[in-house]
């Protein structure tokens, strides 16, 4: 029931919200020369985030190529990178009809933001240009679609995620290759523990969830990760989920994991691996650029590092997580601005640009690329090695953030430490995780 008496107050408050949101976005405009100017909320320079830095450089190249026709104007956006506040930030802008013409979101955020009705649907654009649409890998749009087959984003990457390992530490423990089964991984962990080395670096958030997903995905839980996780209950009825959850918990209890594995700060996990206190860490290929070749890594660590698919529950059943990562979305309805947006997303999904992005960030292209061009680009060998192995593994599955509720990460960080310290049994943990993830997502 809506009340007129309160609508004035709501209007006043909404005006305040709109005022607060101003500055995040900007009107697209035509300059005096007839050039179409569009705004980009994730194209700013960044000395720390290689993806943002690539976006900035790509926008500059776009501006050069289309000088006089289209131009991207960069917005300085404190929420450009991934954070828990990013979705709320864009929701405020959407309510104020002030979304940038171009920006990036991950799939969970897209699902939430599409409810505002302010995102551009790229499905007609792809349908109108079948040649362009045909360049994309299969399934890269799966996590970016709406309920009526809308396509809310053009994917930026398609990565296989495995496990990085320190080959020298493994060799000292008597292993010349990364284990191919979880039992083998636990035997390795026992030997490493005896040597005073932490087997697995976790953080209570991203890295921990990656291992949970690997355990589920290689244990016959692919259906859960693509469908079941969208349901608000019944997670504890899935034997693959229960087995994975309990096994991951046992690694904490058995001392295979770094002691500071619950803060939710990825740097805790990264520090353990980069300082060679931990022998393995799960992460995507961008870890090479963002951490492994950085100043925080022990000297020579890169040369000692291997990158492998996740072990399996049985021999020959290994797996990788396949993610599309962030996608380019648009919040404009202006037809001339949309022309520029369409041209930009075609531009960044061209072969030259996806290779430039792969070199700059380590992310794998979302589109098919000529193998000769791929070889000539001099891509990161660890990344390309896993990408080749990924094509052969038995299991490929999405990350929990792709099809799971948008509030999954917050709920996980809150409940996982309590579950590990024995405050609740597995069934209660999974039931609450499902309920809280949905509640946190405003569902």
């Amino acid at each position, binding site marked *: 029931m809506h009340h007129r008496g309160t609508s004035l107050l709501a209007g*006043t408050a909404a005006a305040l919200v709109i005022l607060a949101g101003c500055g995040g976005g900007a009107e697209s405009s035509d300059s005096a020369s007839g050039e179409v100017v569009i705004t980009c909320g994730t194209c700013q320079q960044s000395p720390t985030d290689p993806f943002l830095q690539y976006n900035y450089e790509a926008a500059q190249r776009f501006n050069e190529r289309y000088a006089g026709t289209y131009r991207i104007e960069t917005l300085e956006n404190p929420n450009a990178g991934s954070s828990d506040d990013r979705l709320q930030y864009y929701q405020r802008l959407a309510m104020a009809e002030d979304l940038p013409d171009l920006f990036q979101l991950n799939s969970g955020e897209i699902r939430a933001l599409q409810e505002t009705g302010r995102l551009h649907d790229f499905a007609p654009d792809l349908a109108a240009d079948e040649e362009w649409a045909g360049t994309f890998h299969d399934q890269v749009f799966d996590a970016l679609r709406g309920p009526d087959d809308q396509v809310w984003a053009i994917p930026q990457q398609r990565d296989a995620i495995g496990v990085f390992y320190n080959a020298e530490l493994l060799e000292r423990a008597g292993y010349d290759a990364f284990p191919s089964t979880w039992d083998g991984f636990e035997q390795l962990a026992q030997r490493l523990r005896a040597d005073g080395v932490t087997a697995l670096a976790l953080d209570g958030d991203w890295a921990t969830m990656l291992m949970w997903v690997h355990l589920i995905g290689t244990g016959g839980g692919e259906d859960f990760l693509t469908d079941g996780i969208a349901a608000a209950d019944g997670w504890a009825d899935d034997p693959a989920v229960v087995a994975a959850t309990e096994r991951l918990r046992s690694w904490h209890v058995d001392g295979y994991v*770094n*002691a500071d594995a*619950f803060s939710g700060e990825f740097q805790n996990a990264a520090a353990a691996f980069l300082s060679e206190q931990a022998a393995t860490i799960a992460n995507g290929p961008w870890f090479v650029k963002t951490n492994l070749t950085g100043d925080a890594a022990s000297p020579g660590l890169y040369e000692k590092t291997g990158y492998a698919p996740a072990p399996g529950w049985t021999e020959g059943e290994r797996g990788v997580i396949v993610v599309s990562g962030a996608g380019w979305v648009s919040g404009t309805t202006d037809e001339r601005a949309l022309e520029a947006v369409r041209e930009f997303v075609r531009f960044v999904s061209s072969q030259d640009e996806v290779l430039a992005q792969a070199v700059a960030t380590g992310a794998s292209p979302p589109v098919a690329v000529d193998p000769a061009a791929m070889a000539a680009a001099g891509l990161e060998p660890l990344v390309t090695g896993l990408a080749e192995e990924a094509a052969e593994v038995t299991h490929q599955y999405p990350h929990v953030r792709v099809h799971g509720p948008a509030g999954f990460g917050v709920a996980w960080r809150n*409940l996982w430490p309590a579950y590990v*310290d024995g*405050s609740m049994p597995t069934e209660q943990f999974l039931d609450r995780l499902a309920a809280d993830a949905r509640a946190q997502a405003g569902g």
Partner: protein
Amino acid sequence: MAVSLLPGAALFATFFLVPLGVLVVTAFSRWGGLDLAWTGLENYRRMLDDPVFFSALGNTLFYAAAAVAVQVPLGVAAGMVLALRPRGWKAFRAIIFVPFVISGAAYALVFSMFYNARAGLLNNALAALGLPGDRDWLFDTATARWAVAGTFVFVVGFVMILVMAEIAAIPDEVYEAAQIDGASAWRQAVHITLPLLRNVIGTVILIRLLVDIGMFDVVFILTAGGPDDATATLALYAYRAYLNGEWGYANAVGSTILVVGVVLIVAVRRLFRVGEGR
């Protein structure tokens, strides 16, 4: 006269009455920013049905009580000792006061490193003493709340400085008369200084309580309210609702914080007769 009040009245209305009105009205509504639907007491019913709300309320009161129970006695004691101007009192005053001016966020970051289970100072010190040194103090449900409280309860500079100022305002004649009557320094402190500090002690308790029932930054940075909401506060609980787009519910929680604050103000003012003469 009335015209001269207009700027002040306008500012008061803009920055106090309007936000308060929005808070109160939307607390009884379902509101996500634009659409507002009156739901009566629904938000409060939901609050009373949510165990996390009571956990957050309990934690908030715990933090407030811990701050008062530790900061006030220690701050009063420090203020009374330094008011005697022992050797080096200015240096001690500065050292004790400096932590108070450090921002809560910076403080929380320092303590997140202090408590770090793998490389933190606390665990390393315990290990050096031969004690178990691998506990994750902030993310173990048994210790998290105490670890969070430990980051701010010893920041006594604010209480100390107010107490010192109050003591400086006590006329010297009072102490001279006591000395003539043969009262020892201890008896002067207990029977003269302490009773005359009643007003300022009541005031600092009031201020501490009002600051702590709105506590957000330290908890948000240290634990984000986890594990299992063991450290969540009412302000953090409201923030989560806000992030979920449940602004009406968030404001219902905010109005509850307001009520808790008013109750505490009235109780402390009556208990300490704050504002009444000496």
